[in-house]
């Protein structure tokens, strides 16, 4: 297996991310999650139907439950773009090897160059999940690797743990990032 340490940790953190999302959405009753398969895919036992499987699927369900459809994007285009970035998160960011980290962050940097949020003019679920995903990527790097990264991306030190915009970080400031101690130890 050539999966990096950070991507394995990301998977174990999926449930923690969903709990943070519940808090962010103001959902009163916390859900109980299980995981499925070797990839530890989060599963939500749904009272209204069959269980829901997968980080993106469960995340979108929680947003609908909280009646916050604007977080899934505005209009058909907005919704498609949000789904695209959610897919990018679980396929590209989570599967990213250490060697690919720079490529991924460069792409995001280029995409976000003239943008505040991933999609449209307000925070969406795409910002939420990309916030967690990129955070894990950067924290998974050693100090030296991070320095090389900042240089190659032409970024300043504020890039430290988050390549995303200040607006996204402000919008999500009530969301606690997952504990990083274990990740730091491996960095």
């Amino acid at each position: 297996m050539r999966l990096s340490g950070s991507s394995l940790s990301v998977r174990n953190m999926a449930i923690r991310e969903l709990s943070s999302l519940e808090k962010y959405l103001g959902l009163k009753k916390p859900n109980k999650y299980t995981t499925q398969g070797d990839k530890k895919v989060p599963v939500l036992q749904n009272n209204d139907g069959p269980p829901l499987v997968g980080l993106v699927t469960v995340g979108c369900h929680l947003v609908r439950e909280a009646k916050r459809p604007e977080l899934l994007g505005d209009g058909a285009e907005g919704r498609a773009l949000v789904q695209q970035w959610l897919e990018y998160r679980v396929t590209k960011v989570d599967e990213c090897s250490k060697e690919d980290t720079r490529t991924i962050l460069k792409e995001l940097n280029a995409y976000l160059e003239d943008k505040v949020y991933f999609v449209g003019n307000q925070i969406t679920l795409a910002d939420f999940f990309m916030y967690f995903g990129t955070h894990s990527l950067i924290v998974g790097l050693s100090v030296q690797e991070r320095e090389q990264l900042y240089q190659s991306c032409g970024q300043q030190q504020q890039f430290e743990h988050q390549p995303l915009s200040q607006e996204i970080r402000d919008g999500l400031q009530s969301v606690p990032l997952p504990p990083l101690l274990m990740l730091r130890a491996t960095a």
Partner: protein
Amino acid sequence: MKLFLSEGNPHCLKALAALVVTQAKCEVEYVNLEGKVVPFLSRPALPALMLPSGQVLFTSNAICRYMFEISGQESSAICDQWLEWEATNLQPALVQALHAAVLQGRGSEVPKIIQGPLNYLDQNLSKGKTTYLTGESVSAADIALWAALFPLLSDSTVTTGEHKAVTLWFNHVNGMSACQLSAQKVLQGKGLQGMKSYMQKQPQSSHSREVPPSTS
């Protein structure tokens, strides 16, 4: 709206089939495998759909989902769940299986590589008892999974093991004229060999990555 495609790429098959099935109004342009449509991505990403606003969708599942939504069929939670499973579970196994079959001439290894995801799909289709993945009408999930599996399941030179429910479902989707037409356009009736140039251009890292025998 404009859809950029390349030949021999099963992801482009998804996008074209979704377009033909939903009859969305959209221009189509074929570009070569190296065609760079999305400026910020480091590698060429196809298919790419230029939206009316000028923004670009560069993942095939998001394109399928969008085509169905603008034709009046909004994606359900179960549809989204299949699309996520396709991207995170089926694709890694498929990439490995196609690499073995198309580039290494090791088609005999395909059943072992692909059996986990196919068993999962088979179990769910048997339990669901509906013609299509999400009910009695075709959805974005059916098109995405059909196109992803098309190169393997339509080629008689490789075996994938027995999956009765998968075969039944696949034949339903495969029988749609929109799917036949799209497959002919994108894969040119050359089967697995029609994908050779595309497979050769895929990054080596995802080829060599082992896929755990996950059932999820």
